[in-house]
């Protein structure tokens, strides 16, 4: 819990909450790494690296289950209320978002393997840019979670728009490739899926930021514009 926070009468309860937080941060680091590697496997045409991302997703899945079980156990045994209740519901949701981000990284790696077998359609410019923003969003949303900082969370929510714009831009560009030359359709579609996966990752990061705002203020902002 945060710095000036009062401790629970039960010290074990504090430990359990802290453990869940630590595990989530670790899960966040794993997913961020998975995105970095999946994009690297695409840019560097490194299919071995891509296969590693797919295999390592298993680790993310195991951690996802472990965190969820800890949260359920705490709900059952402690009956948390107020800020603890908001923390634990937030943790469950963040966990779900991170697990899905891991899946998206694996999806990107799968597409990279296929793309690496074809001649490169064009130099990748917007994809790495998107990936960089998306990773920053994950990192910032988790920082916001740890610091209970709604300003940082709100910035993450705004960042999502940039990703959407880049995704649209990539889509339009690839559309012109496909119109020009039907032989480029397969590669174009794969790149579009990569772009779409990154766009989804940023949606999940935004979801994490939304939950941080809920955790701090008690207000559900998911369906409100940032």
């Amino acid at each position, binding site marked *: 819990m945060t710095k000036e926070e*009062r*401790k*629970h*009468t*039960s010290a074990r*309860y504090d430990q359990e909450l802290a453990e869940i937080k630590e595990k989530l941060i670790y899960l966040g680091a794993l997913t961020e790494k998975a995105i970095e590697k999946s994009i690297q496997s695409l840019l560097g045409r490194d299919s071995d690296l891509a296969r590693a991302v797919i295999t390592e997703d298993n680790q993310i899945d195991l951690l996802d289950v472990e965190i969820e079980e800890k949260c359920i156990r705490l709900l059952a045994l*402690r*009956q*948390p*209320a*107020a*800020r*603890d*209740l*908001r923390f634990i519901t937030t943790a469950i949701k963040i966990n779900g978002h991170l697990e899905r981000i891991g899946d998206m990284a694996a999806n990107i790696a799968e597409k990279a393997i296929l793309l690496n077998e074809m001649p490169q359609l064009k130099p990748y410019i917007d994809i790495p840019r998107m990936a960089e923003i998306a990773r920053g969003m994950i990192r910032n949303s988790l920082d916001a979670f740890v610091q209970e900082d709604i300003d940082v969370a709100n910035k993450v929510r705004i960042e999502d728009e940039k990703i959407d714009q880049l995704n649209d831009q990539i889509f339009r560009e690839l559309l012109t490739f496909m119109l020009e030359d039907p032989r480029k359709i397969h590669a174009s579609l794969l790149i579009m899926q990569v772009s779409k996966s990154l766009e989804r990752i940023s949606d999940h990061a935004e979801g994490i930021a939304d939950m941080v705002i809920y955790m701090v*203020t*008690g207000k559900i902002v998911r369906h409100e514009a940032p």
Partner: protein
Amino acid sequence: MVTTANNIIFELKQVNFFYGSTQALTDISMDFEKNRVTALIGPSGCGKSTLLRLLNRMNDLIDGTRVEGEILFEGRNIYNADNDPVEIRRRIGMVFQKPNPFPKSIFNNITYGPRLTGTRNRADLELLVEQSLKQAVLWDEVKDILNKSAMTLSGGQQQRLCIARALAMKPDVLLMDEPTSALDPISTAKIEDLIEELKKNYTIIIVTHNMQQAARVSEMTGFFYLGRLIEYALTTDIFTNPQVKQTEDYITGRFG
């Protein structure tokens, strides 16, 4: 506050209460709504039970106590000299922490109060016993043993009998002082269901140390600390997003 004026049954205005020179309640102003369940929570010694007992003048029975401010029940100050405390306690019933049936038959437990206040007709009394026990969801368990001693019932049944006994006086309000603290989880669940059922016809004010119970049964919750009302709001708000730090520390188990 989320109350509407015409629905208020109790209105407390700047109430102070003293046991001798010790002030137990300080400047309490709050309203209780009709046909609602209101929970009063707080650590031991915070004044919640004292407040509950003020609402039907139970504290009158303790020497050296003094009340300041106004406690309006349906607009009338219950501490006005011309009010009869017995009549007030008939309209505002109370259920205590430990089941306290009289050492009499189940039947006579229910009819004791009504007989004292003039209901003598056997048929009327029988009807009253059945109605009260049904309302307290005890009828099916005791209908064939009405002449047995109430002391043979289990703790949970005794407590429901005490609720039935209170209901037999046809009160408007039921005050409950930790009504399930001496009961097992099954009996507790039955009493909680009963509270849910009773609020259709009665106003219920409950003091409880079991926070989950307050969260489950009540619509409004007041948090007391050191004789003051710290926060009073919808129960869902108190338990998901309290506005005062002290409330939050208490209900999340960070007190002390």
